[in-house]
Structure formats: C-alpha cells, structure tokens
C-alpha cells in the first residue's frame, strides 16, 4: 500500500515548523543566512535544508494574497533521480516514495540534473569532485527511520493546522479530491489536486486553490529528454555494443586461432 503526504496550501500558515522539524529529526545544522527582503529563508534547498517554505505575494483583482508553498522532494513514481542514479543509492521505498541510502551515493550529481522539481542538492568540491547528495528521504534515513517505527514524517507530525497529512495514498487522493471539490464550490474554479497523476503519481500531493503556475509549480513536470535518451536508449545500446564486441572478439579469437593454426599446420606439412 503506497503512502503519501498531502499538503493543503489553503490550511498552511507558513509557520515553518516543518522546516525546523526536518532539521531537528534529521540532525541537520542551521545555515548562515541573510534577510533578502523576504521572510523566505534559507534562500534555497541545500544539503542541510531538505525542506523549505516559499512565500509569494500576489494581488489578483486588487486583493492581496500571500501564498505559501512547500519545496521538498515530491517522491515521484516516475522518478528521474532513481532512473539516473548509477549506484542505486536512490530507490523506491516499498511504500512508494523515493528513499535514499547515502552510504551508496557516489556524488555524481545526475539526480540533481534529472529532477524535474530541482530538489536534490550536494555540496561539491569543484576541484576533486567529492560530493554527497542530500534530499528529503521522507524520514527513512537509516538510523533515523520514522516510517519503520510506524510514525509519520517529522514535518507532518508537527504541522499545527494539519496542512500536512500522511496516510495511504489512495485515501489522501480521495481526501484531496474532496478538498478540491469544496474549494471549487467556494468559488475557486482552478482548484486542483497537484500530483495525483503527475509523473506517474507523486507521493507528495498538493491541494491548490489556483493553477499550479500561480504557486510556481511546474505545470506538466516531465523527465527530461536527455534523461530518457541517455537512460533508455544509450545505456542499453552501450551494453549491447559492449556485449557484442566482447562476444565478437571472443569468437574471432577462437576462429582465427583455429584457422591460423590450420594454415600453420598446412605450411608445416608442406614444408616438411
């Protein structure tokens, strides 16, 4: 049974308890930040910030709205990161979301480039290339695995308004659709459940009262053409070519040796 997080933006007060809960449970240190003229901080996700809230002010029809969005791993079913991860440090947890075994990470950064939501981060030594990726593991980091204990993720547990819920994905899809219906009834014509179908179904879904673009979410997230071309065409081709080459060379060796030995024998016979 797949599990998921449902994030209801209409209930979120952006208290950012989730941000601190994430750092607290996962033992992540604080970053040094500055005020950039906004409440939003840290400026971006990072190896020590796996979850951050985004703040956006808009003024449709002269009425101010202050929108809050969660920025963290969306735990895709068709996950670009899992697709490209060469050491399979990133993998699909049996409950559906994208778990991560940091010990296996080689620091290649392919996941960072492949993520349609721009989520994984690493601190990379540009010269040596030494790096480790980090991202939200939905609290399944080995040694800090809340899910294995049967608990909900730290961010969900702490959410004051239950804007975050953790449950069976099917139940949350139903719940999310219900919320969307009630929002539509209340006049939010563009209300939608983001993540229900995107990328094979996300394991973090958003109840939005407006179009995803208003919340600065990718409207139709896709695994990039480069990932597909690379992983689904070139990599298998590489195996095929490599494999055939080895086979061919082996074959050649056996055939050629036999032939040449025969030639030699002929010569020897002729010469004797």
């Amino acid at each position, binding site marked *: 049974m797949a599990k998921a997080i449902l994030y209801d933006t209409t209930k979120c007060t952006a*208290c*950012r*308890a989730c*941000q*601190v*809960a994430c750092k*607290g*449970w996962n*033992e992540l*240190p604080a970053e040094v930040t500055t005020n950039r003229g906004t409440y939003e901080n840290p400026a971006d996700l990072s190896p020590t910030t796996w979850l951050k809230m985004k703040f956006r002010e808009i003024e449709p029809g002269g009425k101010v709205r202050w929108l809050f969005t969660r920025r963290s791993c969306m735990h895709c079913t*068709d996950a670009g990161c*899992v*697709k490209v991860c060469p*050491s*399979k440090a990133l*993998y699909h947890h049996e409950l559906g979301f994208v*778990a991560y*075994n940091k*010990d*296996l990470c080689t620091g290649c950064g392919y996941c960072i480039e492949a993520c349609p939501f721009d989520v994984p981060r690493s601190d990379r030594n540009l010269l040596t290339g030494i790096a480790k990726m980090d991202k939200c593991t939905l609290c399944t980091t*080995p*040694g*800090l*695995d809340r899910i*294995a*204990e049967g608990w909900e993720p*730290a961010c969900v*547990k*702490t*959410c*004051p308004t239950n804007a975050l819920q953790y449950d069976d994905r099917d139940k949350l899809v139903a719940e999310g659709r219900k919320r969307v219906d009630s929002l539509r009834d209340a006049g939010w014509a563009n209300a939608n459940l983001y993540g229900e179908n995107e990328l*094979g179904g996300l394991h973090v879904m958003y109840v939005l009262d407006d179009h995803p673009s208003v919340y600065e979410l990718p409207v139709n997230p896709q*695994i990039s*053409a480069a990932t*597909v*071309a690379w*992983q*689904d*065409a070139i*990599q*298998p*081709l590489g*195996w*095929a*070519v*490599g*494999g*055939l*080459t*080895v*086979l061919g060379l082996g074959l050649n060796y056996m055939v050629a040796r036999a032939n040449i030995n025969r030639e030699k024998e002929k010569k020897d016979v002729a010469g004797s």
Partner: protein
Amino acid sequence: MELSRRDFLKASGAAGIGGVFLFGTLDPTAALAGVPRFLPLKNKVKETTTICCYCAVGCGAIVTTYEDETLKIEGDPDHPINEGSLCSKGLAMSQVHQVDGKPNPLRLTRPLYRAPGGTAWQEMDWGTAIETIAQRVKATRDATFDEANSRTEAVASLGGGELDNEECYLLSKMDRALGMVYLEHCARI
C-alpha cells in the same frame, strides 16, 4: 519517448546480453554490496514531558534523551491542545540546551560579575555572588526604608513571565517582604 521503469529493465535486459554475460544480472534492485538500508534508532535514556517555554498556548512537548547524551524535542501527541504539533520555536527549544549535539555555547554556565566602571566580566562563585547580592539588597533597603509604609522605593524587581508559578510565587513573596513596590514583569509591557 516515455519508457516506464519496467520497460527500461526489459529493454536493457534484452539489448544488454553482453552485460548479462559479463556481470550476471542487470537487475538494479538486487541486494547491493552489503550497505544497510535500515538501522535502528539510537538508544533512548528517557522521555520527559514538558510544556513549551515560548508563547502561552501551553503546548505539550516530549524531551527525549539518548545514550549519546543528545536530546530531541517533539510535540506530545497525547496533549489535547497541540496533539503532537509544535511551531518552529517550540521545536527549536532543544537548541536552548544543545546545538548540533553539543551544549549551546551561549548559555550562561557560572555567575559573572562586573565591577563599577569595569569593562569586562569576571567569574564569581555562587557563595560570593549570593553573599554580595544579599548585602547590596540589605544596604539599599535599609538606607531607603519608609517604616510608616513598610516599603522601599529604591529597590525594584522585574520578572518573570518565563518563571514557573512556584518561582513567581516565591519572588512575589520575597519582593513584598523586602518592601518592594516597584515590582513588575512583562505582563505590563
């Protein structure tokens, strides 16, 4: 071109005969090189209930201490007001004691004294600090005491909405016994 993960496995399995030849299996979900995907949580020493020290919602929290002397704080799920939730401040309460597994370096750990006109702190032991403070209180009180009204207007007390009830009570009791009338705390401001 959109291939599902399963298709990809099929495709690579089919195309990569050579790979199979070389490395046995291509199934990337096969057990990997013995790196554990699951480790148990750290050993707990105890769980202690507390009430958040910030605003007056009165949320319950649980302080969990571990064998490695670290601690974590989370909302108390049994508490009827917060039902396990805490806000950013409440959760950060653990850092009052400990930051990144070490004692918060900004906490006061011993009494300090600054002499008149002094430009630096000096460390002081508790005995000296208490003795000196008691003497200062008595000297100021005695010099300014209005016996008719049983008060001194020269010694003042501030605090404390951050103290426990029992501490507030004791402070109220001692302040009044000393005749203080300038007696306030943050409820007024």
